[in-house]
């Protein structure tokens, strides 16, 4: 065969789609192939090999997704075309820059989770079914941002939901709450799916095609309907109020690595959907879209963090905090939409980049936090903060990683959360004015309100994560299990450390990452966000600069002499130990005398009593001889979800009543069914002869 013939053969093979043409196509094909291989391995591998073998394959899937996402984000083109038997256009998976970014986020979390799950899973979490579902979940999640038509988008979305549902149900045999969580999750995810499907249907009817790339000239009527449907659908996926009710049930009940993947990655698909709609499918929407998104986002942020701050269950706390963070992301998205409507492009771009950065940093710190919670459960079997404590000394790596991630979640400087919230605040503060003039009354009312929401949220978040970290890792153990805790296996430590490192890296060197993110959404990226100095970030449009490394260096210049002089002067005085003549009770301190998570949040519950509506139960047991002496007091406080009790419960009750009525109508009697058809036939005959 001559070279020319070989070239010709290669050409035909490329045309026939046998050999991938571009890096993107190869990456997507590889993900699908590895996914199939992982499913096969999970089905056939021996139990003692299963976790390792499939875990490695899952890590490879995630790494492939990471690289593919990176190529797409840097502007790579090409994609995977899948012809299908149905009479419609072939499915086309070709991620653009924005899709690449989200593929990167999702698979980054996937890498952490796969590494972690290799040694964390045991028992039902490591069953064959669970390990089959894991690669399905990962691949589905990574393909959603790659979809360029609504059919493949919905298909990937459903594959993702299916995988996550099976993973959630892994432990259903041992706990009854898992089954209930599964029902809530299925119902709510199908509700979201229904809204998204309806939204795409409206769009397809209005634009005449299912592809995302067809020019969008859609009438305002259908566009508004589609927008509301998409907001409900993707809001449900992104855990926004009032469609968040599944979150506090599902994330705590799922195995920890699954909740990390759900909260860190799957929820971002909701964000991606929101961006897809507002940036790509229906650009230049009216101002009220921005306001609607801001209202939903702000309400979610406040409600989420409020619930998180009073929760004493570590995973419920993290779950509600996810609602808060997603609320902030949507607040940024809404603000950007609103500002773009008033031609404040620089501030709009900054808000959008801030929203994306928040999504990236949330993926990093929230998956680390959930994995940390998983490590705590692995070590103690407890997730109730009131029974933890003193884990810092026993689990140093977990404590360090959890601490860094908590700083990120509380948006403290030198972590990723701070950079994102700083940028969001900058864009909101400067967004109301353009060249010194007020852009509009709406914006000048909305922006300060949004700033207030973020300020309150940030304060409560600080309180929440001080509680989460302080009660769990500091002080003395509050239970025997916590006292006996041991550090988790090295692989789990590795993924925790990786997550924490990324939180720090994004916080210290935000510039390059922000510039990259800016490329994905802005038409003029260098005007929106730039990298300056040692990885610092600059927003030229609104004249704001943040350089964390410089800040660290400066504060070190100030702090080091002070610390050195303190140490030197301390050397001069020898250490003395003095026996206290009277300890004031402090010398007999017991673990029960410490603050608990519930008591720490108690003032907050009082302040927000009207919103949270807690139910308290105080039981006083008197000493048998006298009712003036108390033997023990038991206080129980439950904070239920207002939306669940006030909004969902009545609707569910209505459906239940309807179900009971219908059961009488269709009671299984053949005669009754036959009578129905007979009567129907008679009615038809009478009607046609009238």
């Amino acid at each position: 065969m001559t070279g020319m013939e070989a070239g010709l053969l290669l050409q035909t093979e490329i045309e026939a789609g046998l050999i991938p043409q571009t890096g993107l196509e190869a990456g997507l094909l590889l993900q699908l192939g590895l996914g199939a291989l992982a499913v096969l391995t999970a089905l056939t591998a021996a139990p003692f090999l299963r976790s390792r073998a499939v875990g490695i394959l899952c890590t490879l899937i995630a790494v492939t997704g990471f690289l593919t996402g990176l190529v797409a984000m840097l502007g790579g083109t090409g994609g995977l075309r899948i012809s299908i038997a149905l009479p419609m256009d072939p499915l086309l998976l070709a991620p653009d820059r924005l899709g690449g970014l989200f593929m990167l986020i999702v698979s980054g979390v996937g890498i952490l989770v796969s590494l972690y799950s290799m040694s964390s899973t045991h028992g039902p979490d490591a069953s064959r079914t669970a390990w089959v579902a894991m690669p399905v979940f990962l691949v589905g999640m990574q393909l959603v941002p790659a979809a360029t038509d609504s059919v493949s988008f919905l298909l990937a979305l459903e594959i993702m939901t299916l995988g996550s549902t099976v993973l959630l149900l892994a432990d259903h045999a041992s706990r009854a709450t898992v089954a209930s969580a599964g029902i809530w999750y299925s119902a709510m995810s199908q509700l979201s799916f229904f809204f998204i499907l309806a939204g795409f249907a409206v769009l397809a009817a209005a634009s005449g095609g299912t592809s995302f790339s067809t020019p969008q000239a859609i009438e305002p009527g259908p566009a508004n309907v589609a927008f509301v449907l998409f907001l409900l659908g993707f809001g449900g996926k992104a855990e926004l109020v009032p469609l968040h009710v599944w979150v506090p049930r599902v994330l705590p009940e799922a195995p920890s690595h699954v909740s990390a993947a759900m909260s860190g990655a799957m929820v971002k698909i909701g964000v991606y959907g929101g961006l897809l709609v507002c940036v790509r499918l229906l650009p230049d929407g009216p101002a009220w879209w921005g306001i609607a998104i801001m209202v939903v986002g702000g309400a979610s942020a406040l409600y989420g963090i409020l619930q998180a701050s009073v929760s004493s269950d570590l995973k419920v706390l993290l779950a509600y905090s996810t609602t808060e963070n997603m609320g902030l992301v949507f607040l940024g998205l809404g603000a950007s939409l609103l500002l773009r409507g008033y031609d404040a492009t620089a501030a709009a771009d900054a808000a959008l980049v801030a929203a994306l950065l928040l999504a990236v940093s949330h993926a990093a710190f929230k998956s680390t936090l959930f994995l940390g919670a998983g490590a705590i459960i692995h070590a103690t079997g407890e997730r109730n903060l009131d029974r933890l404590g003193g884990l810092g000394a026993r689990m140093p790596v977990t404590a360090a990683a959890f601490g860094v991630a908590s700083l990120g979640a509380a948006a403290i400087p030198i972590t990723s959360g701070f950079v994102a919230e700083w940028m969001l605040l900058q864009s909101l503060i400067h967004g109301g004015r353009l060249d010194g003039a007020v852009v509009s009354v709406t914006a000048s009312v909305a922006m300060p309100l949004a700033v207030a929401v973020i300020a309150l949220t940030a304060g409560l978040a600080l309180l929440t994560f001080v509680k989460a970290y302080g009660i769990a890792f500091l002080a003395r153990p509050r239970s025997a299990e916590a006292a006996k805790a041991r550090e988790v296996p090295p692989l789990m430590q590795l993924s925790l450390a990786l997550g924490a490192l990324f939180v720090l890296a994004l916080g210290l060197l935000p510039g390059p990452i922000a510039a990259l993110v800016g490329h994905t959404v802005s038409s003029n990226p260098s005007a929106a966000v730039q990298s300056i100095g040692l990885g610092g970030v600059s927003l030229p449009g609104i004249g704001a600069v943040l350089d964390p490394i410089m800040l660290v260096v400066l504060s070190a210049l100030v702090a080091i002499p002070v610390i050195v002089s303190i140490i030197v002067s301390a050397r001069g005085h020898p250490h003395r130990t003095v026996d206290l003549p009277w300890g004031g009770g402090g010398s007999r301190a017991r673990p029960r005398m410490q603050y608990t998570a519930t008591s720490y949040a108690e003032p907050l519950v009082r302040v927000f009593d009207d919103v949270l509506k807690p139910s308290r139960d105080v039981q006083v047991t008197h000493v048998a001889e006298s009712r003036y002496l108390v033997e023990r007091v038991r206080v129980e406080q439950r904070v239920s979800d207002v939306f669940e009790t006030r909004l969902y419960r009545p609707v569910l009750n209505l459906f239940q009543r309807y179900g009971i009525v219908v059961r009488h109508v269709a009671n299984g009697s053949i005669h009754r069914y036959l009578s129905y058809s007979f009567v129907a036939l008679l009615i038809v005959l009478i009607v046609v002869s009238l």
Partner: protein
Amino acid sequence: MFETFYPQLIGLCTGALLLTSALMVWRHSLLASIRLLALQGIALAALVAVIGIAEGESELVLVSLLILSVKGIGLPWVLAHQSKASIKQIQESPRLNPTAALLAVTLLTILSYVVVSRVFGLGDNETGHAAPIGLAMVLIGFLLLISRRRARSQLIGFLLLDNGIATIAFLTSGGVPVLLEFAVSLDVLLVVLILHVFTGRMRTKFGGTSVDQLRELHD
């Protein structure tokens, strides 16, 4: 000669069909119902034969022989294939008392006349005039299905319904090709055989064939 009798013969056959249907609703004994079914099959075969002779189509005569063998002899024999003594004891206790049932039959017959005349028009030939009988048989068969408790009585309702459909077909369009009729007849025979075996199993398993007891839905 034949032309003068033709309308009367059509009237006689369709009258027999309607009469047997009404009697089936009235009588509660299973054996009587089976005999009436056989009679109805013979009447149907006679109707087809009369139409065939009047139209001069030998194929229809062939079909009438087929109907006679399947609906007049075969199916009743299958249904009654059990010791006469036991089948005589089977008494249906229907969900509708005989007076109400006969009243319902009257109303259904009137309804079918109204429907056919208003919707399709009665047409100007004798067979067209008799077409409502077929619809009435279908409705009466349905009535039997919902009013009878025992599986085997319901089977008879089902067969009556099938006869009704066949009657409509022959009266309005001069029947179907012989091959199709053959296939349909075999189908009905097969269904009846299966249901018959099924009823037998039901009786040995539960001791009774009252469909009312089959209310629990199982996975």
